[in-house]
């Protein structure tokens, strides 16, 4: 791939990116969230068209307009969310795109035979007749890879294949990748985990803000160097320089585990403090705080203290009553009531409290909302319009308004600036600072290291649900956050 450019609107996602892959090679594609890795691979996979640039395959220029084109050219794309049908057998999944038939009926014998042949060749010990549902995540990954091979793929793109796998499972996938390599298949390995890159990859390419910043042999570099490439030295994020005035401890977690998403988490946050919690995909931070908020309904061990009293939230209503607010990630799925007006969306949390003789006191509802509208600078037409008429940033502010109306003591913000433009982002940051100044204990969950550095006083980095480390003041920089989030050890000397 040469000089690939792509922009969405005024936003240049890729600027003249070059990328190459040889047969029988595993190449790592690295970069932070939003660096353009997925966009580049989507162009290769025929999901998105490139604005300019050239793709050559075996020396011949090719164009991919549809995913099918790229598939036919021998490029298999294994997405992060696996594309297998749980209720079918392995061999049926292998042939899902064109099921072989014998007369009117499916030719199960041929499917089974060809799957078995492939499994033998790859030295996989699986019965092709097993239901996919019964496989663990690593075998599912392997079945996906085999499916790509079945379609004669010579290049396989793997988008963060190891995020949901355990260590032995990762090793299983890696040994599969090594045998593919021996058979001359080229693999593009997208990952955040630098340790794995060092272990499995031959070459690397690092993208940052849509440009290629480094490329070379893995054997010539080390984790520290790669982390520096990903973050970049010249990017010095604006740091948080507010005056802090902490009060009493508001929320404390002690050895909290649910044994699935998070393990042995202990932290505390004081009134007026802004605590950041960050990590990469699959770090369990959302699940952790949804548990605190009573939205998970799963069993956990350890204890949660609110202002020194142990609490156990069985549902979100209790959490609301106790003064804990949680602004969820994925606004559209988790926060927006699409059939309701801006006003109703902005006051739904507090609505049961705004009443007179059992009925909603509309005058009070409007007054309370007007105060938040002014406070948060919500730009909108009529407050009776549907919430969906607003831009992403303003929708987010309305969602924030509904929680602020309840005057929480602990405010948990999960990805508060997701899908919000730069201007609105800054506004949300200053709102967060203002709230902390008023004595609210704020917890910001974010995968963007820059955001954490920009807003938080202190941050906790999670790696696969484990507490990887705590950073504050000068130590809280992108390099250290990335290093801890990618599985680095806090005690090693590689921190800067």
């Amino acid at each position, binding site marked *: 791939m040469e000089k690939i450019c792509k922009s969405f609107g005024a936003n240049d996602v890729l600027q003249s990116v070059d990328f190459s892959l040889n047969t029988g090679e595993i190449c790592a594609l690295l970069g932070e969230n939003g660096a353009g890795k997925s966009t580049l691979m989507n162009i290769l996979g025929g999901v998105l068209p490139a604005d300019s640039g050239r793709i050559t395959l075996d020396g011949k220029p090719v164009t991919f307009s549809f995913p099918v084109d790229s598939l036919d050219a021998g490029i298999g794309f294994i997405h992060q969310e696996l594309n297998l049908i749980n209720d079918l057998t392995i061999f049926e999944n292998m042939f899902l795109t064109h099921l072989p038939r014998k007369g009117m009926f499916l030719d199960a014998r041929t499917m089974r035979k060809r799957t078995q042949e492939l499994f033998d060749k790859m030295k996989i010990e699986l019965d092709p007749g097993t239901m996919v549902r019964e496989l663990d995540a690593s075998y599912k990954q392997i079945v996906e890879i085999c499916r790509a091979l079945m379609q004669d793929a010579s290049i396989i793109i793997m988008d963060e294949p190891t995020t949901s796998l355990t260590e032995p499972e990762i090793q299983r996938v890696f040994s599969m990748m090594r045998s593919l390599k021996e058979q001359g298949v080229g693999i593009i390995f997208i990952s955040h985990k630098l340790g794995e890159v060092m272990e499995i990859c031959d070459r690397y390419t690092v993208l940052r803000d849509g440009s290629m910043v480094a490329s070379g042999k893995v054997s010539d570099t080390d984790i520290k160097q790669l982390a520096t490439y990903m973050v970049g030295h010249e990017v010095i994020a604006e740091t948080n320089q507010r005056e802090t005035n902490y009060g009493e401890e508001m929320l404390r977690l002690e050895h909290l585990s649910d044994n699935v998403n998070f393990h042995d988490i202990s932290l505390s946050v004081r009134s007026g403090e802004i605590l950041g919690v960050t990590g990469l995909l699959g770090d369990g931070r959302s699940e952790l705080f949804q548990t605190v908020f009573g939205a998970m309904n799963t069993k956990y061990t350890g204890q949660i203290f609110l202002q020194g009293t142990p609490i156990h939230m069985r*549902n*979100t*209503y209790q959490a609301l009553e106790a003064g804990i607010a949680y602004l969820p990630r994925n606004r559209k799925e988790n926060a927006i*009531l*699409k*059939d309701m007006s801006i006003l109703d969306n902005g006051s739904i*949390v507090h609505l049961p409290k705004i009443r007179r003789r059992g009925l909603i006191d509309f005058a009070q509802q409007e007054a309370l909302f007007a105060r938040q509208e002014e406070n948060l600078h919500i730009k909108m037409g009529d407050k009776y319009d549907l919430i969906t008429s607003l831009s992403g940033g303003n929708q987010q502010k309305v969602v924030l308004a509904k929680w602020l109306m309840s005057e929480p003591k602990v405010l948990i913000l999960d990805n508060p600036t997701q899908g919000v433009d730069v201007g609105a982002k800054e506004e949300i940051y200053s709102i967060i600072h203002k709230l902390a100044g008023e004595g609210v204990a704020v917890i910001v969950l974010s995968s963007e290291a820059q955001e954490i550095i920009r807003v938080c006083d202190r941050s906790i980095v999670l790696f696969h649900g484990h507490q990887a480390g705590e950073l504050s003041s000068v130590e809280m920089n992108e390099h250290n956050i990335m290093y801890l989030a990618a599985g680095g050890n806090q005690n090693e000397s590689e921190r800067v």
Partner: protein
Amino acid sequence: MKVSVSDMETKKIEKQHTMIGKFRDNWGNSALFSTIFALVVMLLIQCIVMYVNAGSLGGMFSKMGMAWLNILRNNAYQGVIALGMCFIIISGGIDLSVGSMLCALGAILMYLIAPGNGLMAKIGLSGPLAYGLAIIIVIAAGFLFGQINGTLISYGKLPPFIATLGMMKIFRSVTQQLTKHFNPTIPADFKLIASMKIGGQVILPILYWVLIVVIMHIIFTRTAFGRQTIAIGSNERAAKLSGINVNKVKRNIYALGGVMCAIAAVIYIARIGSMDFANAGSGYEMDAIAAVIVGGTAMSGGRGSLVGAFLGMLIIGVMNNILNTVGVPTFLCDAVKGLIIIFAVLVQKKENV
């Protein structure tokens, strides 16, 4: 203020222009608007049919009056049930058990008030006091039955369709078994509750129905419970993450549906004076759902109106009346009803997936 002729003319044209625009806007944005429009069209057709049938304008009016009296009082029970159903559908659920529940509640009511061997008579109560107490007990039973549905759906995490289908079978069969040797009659004065004539006509069921429409409309539009119902139907996950006690609200929504069934059962018994436990109320769930849907409420939840459910019931009633007057064979009436329901949903504004 002076307005020149030409100005007035342009304004008229503008107004006409915006009227068409407004019509289109309203059609797209307000489900209630299209329901009212449909009802008006139905009324016009009814007028024409009645005029042809009666042959004179005076005859048309008297026939229309009678027809409407019948439409309103004959649909009062299903109409009341439809109001509960409307709440349930707006919350994203469904309740198939309403017909059987009406039957079960009717049986309880008759068991309470039967002269001689009824429970009220046994403890020595009679007259208005006994009836009042019996009605309160039946409404409480309806609330409890609804709570059972709601508990299965919220805590048991059963799909509403399955939970209420099961309860529908249970209510019906248990009622039939328990009433096997029970041949109840009801006191004549109890019938006055619905059958007392006012101005020479039986209009009490209509008054009850309209009163309940008003109360339910206020609950829906002016209480936090109403808003929370919309929120759950619109996006249950977001509702939960907004600190709404989704399980509790759902239970109360189904309980409200049960209370509506109880009220319908009281009106039914007082109007008809008896109940056939094998068939009473069967098919009411479908009538209620049809009224709710024709009234512009989205099957997917989140959008709808209680007044719409009332108007939807009237539309179906008027249609039945027209079909009878025109002389469409009885067996074909349901086919026309089916067509109307399908058409009503076809013209509804739908979301892009």
